[in-house]
């Protein structure tokens, strides 16, 4: 049963991203600032840090599956989120071996992950011709608001989910060893 919790929670993140913008006050929307909810990615980073072991790649698998789901439901171009999320999670999985995971490391890694992912998405969409923003505009309009908004969400998510992920991880992988 427990192995279904993670996919369900991730699916819920995908669903919630669609209504996330309702929470943003109208006055901020009118200023043409773009805040992209990367909640799924935040969750995936947490899974990488607290659920996965060094030699398991569940987060990567989920990144590919649910990234594709985001592509299908929210955008018109397939594969962009899938590729970018998978790549970013792979990088985070690599860094994880070097750093000990506490709150600040997790926050730092999440911010790095979101920055990387959003820049990756910007570059790919720029080449396809979906956006024509220049780098400086992109930084001011989209990257910085997105980073701030997602950091707030991370601080809310972290205390709720951390211990649970550690528990699930222990139950899952300890039982396997025995």
């Amino acid at each position, binding site marked *: 049963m427990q192995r279904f919790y993670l996919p369900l929670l991730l*699916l*819920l993140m*995908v*669903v*919630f*991203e*669609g*209504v*996330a*913008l*309702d*929470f943003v006050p*109208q006055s901020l*929307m*009118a200023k*043409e600032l*773009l805040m*992209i*909810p990367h909640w799924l990615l935040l969750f995936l980073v947490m899974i990488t840090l607290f659920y996965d072991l060094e030699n398991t790649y569940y987060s990567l698998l989920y990144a590919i599956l649910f990234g594709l*789901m*985001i*592509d*299908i*439901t*929210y*955008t*018109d*171009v*397939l*594969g*962009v989120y*899938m*590729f970018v999320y*998978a*790549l970013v999670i792979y990088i985070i999985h690599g860094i994880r071996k070097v750093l000990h995971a506490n709150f600040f490391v997790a926050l730092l890694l999440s911010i790095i992950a979101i920055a990387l992912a959003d820049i990756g*998405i910007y570059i*790919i*969409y720029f080449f*396809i011709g*979906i*956006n024509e923003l220049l780098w400086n505009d992109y930084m001011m309009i989209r990257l910085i608001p997105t980073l701030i908004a997602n950091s707030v969400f991370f601080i809310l998510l972290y205390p709720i989910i951390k211990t649970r992920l550690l528990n699930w991880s222990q139950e899952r992988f300890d039982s396997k060893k025995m």
Partner: protein
Amino acid sequence: MLFFRKKRLFFILIGFILLVGLIGFSLSERDDKTIVEEFIQDSVGWMQGIVHVPVEYTTTIAKNIKEIKNVYEENQLLKTRLNQYNRLLEEVNDLRADNETLRSTLDKTESESLRDFNAIQATVIARSKEQWFKMVTINKGEQDGLEKNMAVITGEGMIGKIYTTSQFTSSVMLLNGFDQSNRISVNVNVEDREKDASGFIIGYDEESESLLLELDEYNIELAKEEVVFSSGLGGVFPKGLEIGTIEEVKPDRYGLTKIAHVTPSADFYDLSHVIVVERLAEQPEESVEEEE
């Protein structure tokens, strides 16, 4: 160690090839979505429909409280308006009857004019999280008779058109996401001329937050605040859907045509209930196929 590096590079390359392939596939001109896409969109849409209700409830509470303060004044104003509307309604009925008798004397018996349409009510259940795609999801799909390219309006004016449909949900492309490939033929009301000015909506200007309207005629003076509405020609939109009001008119880069900036009537950010418009008059593409 070298073996692992090679393997890693191999996977990244495969991923990259997959990415390019998928992008190519989705950018190619395709009419219908694949079954997998429809299935995922419908099931996520179904969940969004459930989640949307409490979210909408909580986010609108603050707004509702603010509105309650003004209720009394608004009510007074509306009561006075109501009388005027009654008079207007009578006048419209009169004109309609007049129109019918005149049409019958002209032997113009076609009952389906470009203005007639069916309205399908729908609710916006999600907005694309990638805000470069100006799309929202609504809770009606092919099962409710929706088709690609139908116009979508609110009480204030037109907001966009159906971009893709699944069985139970569809995504709407908002007017501010329109580009050259999906233009709308429009008319502009000109006061001191009998004929309306015509033109095309060719895109959206992010900086001035207005739609760009290319006028067919060069020697034409348009006053500010004139109403722009769809002409019903060349497509699936019925005639007479309000789009916006003229903000300013200036010549284009090369001085060959005039471009008008049009402020959209509807608010694209505050959407909840929308109406999908199904035109009753026959569509031009179909008649071409019949001729062939």
